[in-house]
């Protein structure tokens, strides 16, 4: 083999080698990225599992405290109330006993309210719509704002865990709304047109923008919003703070109904 042939073969080999290197670079980079994505997905899955365990523990604790308050302390106070009532009929000093009785009544009412807030009784039995209606009644009674509610289609039941998460999200949103936006009127709109539950909360208070929500989540300064985000991950839902239109801002919450909810 003479030098000329060798040169030609070398040039051809170099060209071929360079093409193989480029192909290798593309395929190898894809493989690395795929591996990294797999690792990320495993980490996210684990994070979700930890989150799920922590949320379940939190809900369990709430349930336990609610039951203790309602069944134990509530019953004790009711018995005390009966005793006071009985003593009222025998004693001459009615005024003090009446005052004590009304204080006990007030305490029973507060305990009921705390207990219901910790574990909404209607949620498990009647579902999300009834619980939101109850929340709407409570808000109207408290006169914090004029609250209305409409449903445009039949609202299906989700699994109990998801319903509880959605309810907690709404509760947190309303608390934040009353605290920061100070609206005069709030309107709930519930719909389930396809395989998605859509909850819109319209209000005439100070608007809160999507970019602020994302910024607060990123900086980790909004604890309530962080809880909302964690629960949203759990139900695979989306939350969007829409731009104000005609003086009304809206918060759109969408949750897949037929997704694999845990």
């Amino acid at each position: 083999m003479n030098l000329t042939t060798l040169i030609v073969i070398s040039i051809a080999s170099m060209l071929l080698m360079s093409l193989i290197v480029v192909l290798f670079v593309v395929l190898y980079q894809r493989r690395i990225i795929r591996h990294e994505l797999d690792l990320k997905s495993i980490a996210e899955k684990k994070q979700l599992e930890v989150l799920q365990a922590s949320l379940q523990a939190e809900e369990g604790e709430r349930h336990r405290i609610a039951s203790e308050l309602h069944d134990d302390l509530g019953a004790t106070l009711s018995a005390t109330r009966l005793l006071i009532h009985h003593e009222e009929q025998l004693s001459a000093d009615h005024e003090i006993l009446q005052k004590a009785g009304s204080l006990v009544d007030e305490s029973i009412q507060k305990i009921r309210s705390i207990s219901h807030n910790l574990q909404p009784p209607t949620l498990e039995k009647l579902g999300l719509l009834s619980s939101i209606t109850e929340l709407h009644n409570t808000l109207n009674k408290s006169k914090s704002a004029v609250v209305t509610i409409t449903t445009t289609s039949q609202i299906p039941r989700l699994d109990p865990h998801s319903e509880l998460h959605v309810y907690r999200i709404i509760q947190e949103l309303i608390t934040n709304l009353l605290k920061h936006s100070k609206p005069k009127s709030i309107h709930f709109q519930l719909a389930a047109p396809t395989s998605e539950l859509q909850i819109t909360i319209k209000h005439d208070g100070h608007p809160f923008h999507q970019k602020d929500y994302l910024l607060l989540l990123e900086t980790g300064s909004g604890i309530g919003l962080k809880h909302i985000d964690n629960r949203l991950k759990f139900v695979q839902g989306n939350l969007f703070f829409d731009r104000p239109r005609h003086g009304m801002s809206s918060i759109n919450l969408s949750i897949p109904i037929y997704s694999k909810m845990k």
Partner: protein
Amino acid sequence: MDSLLDLLSILVPLLVCLVNIRSRKHVLWYYVLFGSIIECSILTSKILFGENNGLNILANIFILIELITIGCFYSIKFNNVWKKTILILTATASLIFVYDCIKSQLAEINTIALSCLSLLYLLVSTIGYLRMFRNMSHKYIESSSFFWFNTAFFIYASSSLLIFLFADYLMKENQQLFYYLWQYIYKIVNIARYALIGIGLGRLKRQ
């Protein structure tokens, strides 16, 4: 076939200059522009005066421009350690190239210097791939403009290295073979280089 390749050698860089015209702020856009001007001048001269060795001065000027622009491109892309090394290498290589051209004949293409430059491009483009592996900034490597630029220089340098290195020998021993290598390998790879740079410039817009 020969005239088609000559035509493509001019048309491809010209078209690349038009691709994503906003990317003219990019250093490689000027590189392609200079390339198309030089290719145009050489072809015009060939048509008007036949083979003209005097145009090798233009080719030598382009080699220097090529060296500086590619050096600048990689020094911008790389981090501090490689940045300094590449800038020093580019400056040294440019000075040696200018000195060597003046010392020998300016009208002759310095093939040894050219093969050294090809080796340098091969080195920096290999480092470019390693850097891409380390950074992993794109899910799909093809969506990165740097990948296309780097591939353009890598393929061009690896193919032209041996052609330049043995150019003098082949011109003496087998001129016909050298002509074929030049016409059908070097020119095609050169067109591919501009086309790949064009794809890279196009990707800049999407990024």
